[in-house]
């Protein structure tokens, strides 16, 4: 199959555009990727198993939860279920991502889902918010380097884990919450942002205290989403919904 040079150039330029967008995240997530590798080895993983988890799961928070549970005498199904609970939010990302990539082919989307971690989802939403179409090359540009570096991080962490200097003094252990605050603020212009933040924050804290991690993520998220869904629907949205049914004749 031959690809016209101009098409290849356009692909490369879009890919590079995505990569540039992802560089801050690659830098920001590196400490966690390395830390994951180091902790995994300390919890009884081999270097190969640590690298395999980063390469196949590719979801930082859930990987941390996973290795934390491996260290304790917890049944295997419970560990898998906990990873699922932390990652349940991806169901909601997936639904939104699917709507934004209707113009992609089936295999492009199947691959796209694999890379659909928090940063990719956030950047895709930001892109769509700016009124731009989500291109496959752009998405691959942001997703693939982040994935490769994430796997590399785990490998380095597993090999040199014990050589990391004082992670507390360097603030490395608290970079993830700061990063999530930044992402959170980026969505502040969405409707119902503040009520959702308050509802989710309160529910997550209560769940964290009385149900325990990792369920506070699913419970807190559900509280905010249900609040938004329960709010009165505006007349405009109601009319648009009714019109979409009329135009296509219903199912």
């Amino acid at each position, binding site marked *: 199959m031959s690809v016209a040079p101009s098409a290849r150039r356009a692909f490369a330029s879009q890919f590079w555009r995505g990569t540039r967008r992802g560089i*801050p995240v690659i830098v920001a997530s590196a400490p966690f990727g390395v830390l994951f590798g180091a902790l995994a080895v300390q919890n009884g993983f081999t270097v190969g*198993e640590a690298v*395999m*988890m980063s390469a196949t*799961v590719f*979801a930082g*928070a*859930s990987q941390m939860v*996973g290795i934390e549970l*491996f260290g304790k005498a917890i049944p295997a199904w419970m*560990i*898998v279920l906990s*990873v*699922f609970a932390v*990652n349940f*939010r*991806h*169901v*909601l990302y*997936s*639904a*939104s991502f*699917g709507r934004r990539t209707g113009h992609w082919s089936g295999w492009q989307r199947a691959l796209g889902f694999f890379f659909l971690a928090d940063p990719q989802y956030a950047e895709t939403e930001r892109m769509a918010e700016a009124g731009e179409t989500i291109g496959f090359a752009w998405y691959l540009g942001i997703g693939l380097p982040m994935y490769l570096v994430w796997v590399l991080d785990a490998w380095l962490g597993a090999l040199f884990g014990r050589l990391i200097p004082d992670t*507390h*003094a360097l603030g490395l252990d*608290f*970079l993830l*919450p*700061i*990063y*999530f*605050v*930044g*992402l*959170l*603020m*980026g*969505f*502040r212009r*969405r409707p119902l942002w503040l009520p*959702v933040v308050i509802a*989710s*924050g309160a529910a*997550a*804290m209560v769940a*964290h205290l009385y149900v325990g*991690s990792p369920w506070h*993520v699913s419970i*807190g*998220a*559900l509280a905010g*989403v*249900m609040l*938004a*869904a329960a*709010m009165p629907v*505006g007349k405009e*949205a109601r009319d648009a*919904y009714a019109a979409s049914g009329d135009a*296509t004749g219903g199912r």
Partner: protein
Amino acid sequence: MSEIGWIVLAAAVMTYLTRAGGHLVLSRFRRIHPRVEAGLNAVPAAVFTTLVAPAAMNASPAEALALVVAALLGLRGGMFSVFLGGGLVLIAGRYLLG
């Protein structure tokens, strides 16, 4: 393969199912109800709040200060300034406040 290996693979399959599943389920509905739409629009704020909440709840003074500075920087600047500013406040705060 070791037990750890099998658990990791099962976790990977579950994770991929969450990432593909939301779309596969929702795409069966031709129209999206405004309430579902409103719920979907709330997802990022809801999820990122829950990821911050435990850290905020158990934060030391230095960590709490870093989160507040990060949020304030998020009102004006982009991700990079949030990250740099929050990180610097954290390191300085831990050095000064312990």
